């Protein structure tokens, strides 16, 4: 009962959003290039869909986000695991890791574009960097939280290092790890857009900027909605992983 009610509320709030938007457009009477109506955006969406540009740019961004997320997560879990296992390594590396967090990604994005070019690679790296830290922290927390008596159990059974990793450490820390991935997924979308806004010939960030330059505000709205959709899809994928792996 409770869940169906809350679902209904969510649905209602989404459904109410469009009439409310329409109402604001009519009352305020702003020009289309400042605030387009829902119908303007829908028309623009259909047009971009039909000429193929929307799918193209969305898929570019999606690939960047996904590759960045994968690379960042992979790297962060490996480094995180090593840091969780070695206090010495943590002492050596943690000043750099913390300092790296003080630099906003926006500040180094232009550098990365200069170094790596305005193609997909620079965006993937930006995504990976932005994903790295939250996944790293969650990995460390997750691995450190594995119960010591369970290590005793594994060792009493003379488990190998790999068995301890796959049968104990990974499953035990998976909930926390996926929590990190959830945060990382949303951040990765932001990373790709930041990179594309710096300089790109393709992607939703490029479309966003193009719409902005051409006073095609409906296009900007379409791009923003596509970004939201991307973030939701990624979020959904992480949720599916959680459903599959966490009992």
């Amino acid at each position, binding site marked *: 009962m409770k869940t169906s009610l809350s679902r209904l509320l969510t649905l209602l709030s989404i459904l109410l959003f469009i009439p409310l938007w329409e109402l604001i457009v009519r009352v305020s009477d702003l020009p289309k290039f400042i605030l387009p109506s829902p119908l303007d955006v829908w028309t623009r969406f259909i047009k971009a869909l039909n000429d193929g540009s929307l799918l193209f740019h969305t898929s570019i961004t999606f690939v960047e986000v996904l590759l960045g997320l994968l690379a960042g997560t992979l790297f962060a879990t490996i480094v995180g695991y090593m840091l969780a296992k070695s206090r010495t390594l943590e002492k050596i590396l943690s000043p750099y890791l913390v300092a790296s967090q003080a630099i906003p990604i926006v500040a180094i994005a232009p550098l990365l574009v200069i170094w790596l070019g305005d193609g997909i690679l620079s965006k993937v790296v930006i995504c990976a960097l932005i994903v790295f830290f939250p996944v790293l922290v969650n990995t460390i927390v997750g691995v450190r939280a594995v*119960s010591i008596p369970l290590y005793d*159990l594994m060792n009493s059974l003379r488990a190998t290092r790999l*068995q301890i990793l796959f049968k104990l450490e990974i499953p035990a820390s998976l909930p926390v790890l996926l929590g990190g991935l959830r945060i990382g997924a949303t951040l990765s979308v932001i990373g790709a857009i930041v990179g594309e806004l710096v300089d790109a010939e393709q992607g939703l960030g490029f479309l966003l900027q193009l719409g902005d330059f051409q006073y095609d505000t409906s296009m900007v709205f379409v791009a923003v909605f596509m970004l939201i959709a991307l973030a939701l899809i990624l979020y959904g994928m992480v949720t599916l992983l959680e459903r599959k792996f966490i*009992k």
Partner: protein
Amino acid sequence: MRKSMLSNPALVVKDLSVNFRDNHSTIHALENISFNVQAREFVCFLGPSGSGKTTLLRVIANLIQPTSGAVEFTFDHQPKIGMVFQQPNLMAWRSVLENIKLPLELENVDKDIANQKANELIQLVGLKGFENSLPRDLSGGMAQRVGIARALIHDPDLLLLDEPFASLDAITRERMWMELSNICQAKQKTVVMVTHSINESLFLADRVLVLTQRPGKIKLDVEVNLPRPRQEEMRYTNQFGELAKKLRSAIE
């Protein structure tokens, strides 16, 4: 009745001492412990809490290194160990069946064989119908029984039991005594168990060794010449009373 003098020791512990250091002080957990355990013997260590019982089992299981002394096995292979911990110590993400199968999984035993063995043990420890339950849905007693089944499934050479029944209610505990006793008889297990319950030690063991309060030293070593299978009623016999009295006075 097995006599420890007739020697075919499975386990020889020599002059074992374990110290723990924290920042300032050194804790002497065990001091100069020496004893043998015969093959198929059920040996019980009796001691108050803090007497180093858990530490002793951890040294035997090779989980920690002793400060001095040695633990030697006389098996012709690395002995397989089945350990039951003071807490159930189950993997929260695994079902009852999967928890019990863990030792076989680590030995890469065929899945069907593993399932069959696990189901036999589930039957034995009375968990039929709970195969697919997760540890969080079990009572303390049920979880502990999963731990016991897990310790038996890979047919270990040596069973190490760390107060395995301390968290059970009295009725379940006595039932588990009977079951463990039967299992060990049937499977001819070599067992080292630690406990602080005199009744438990007399119900199960062939031999009881009493540990002193810190540092743990062996204060008494007695044969339990009570007939097997041991029954509820033997508690009211003179022989039992004598032994219990002897142990009680040794524990202080």
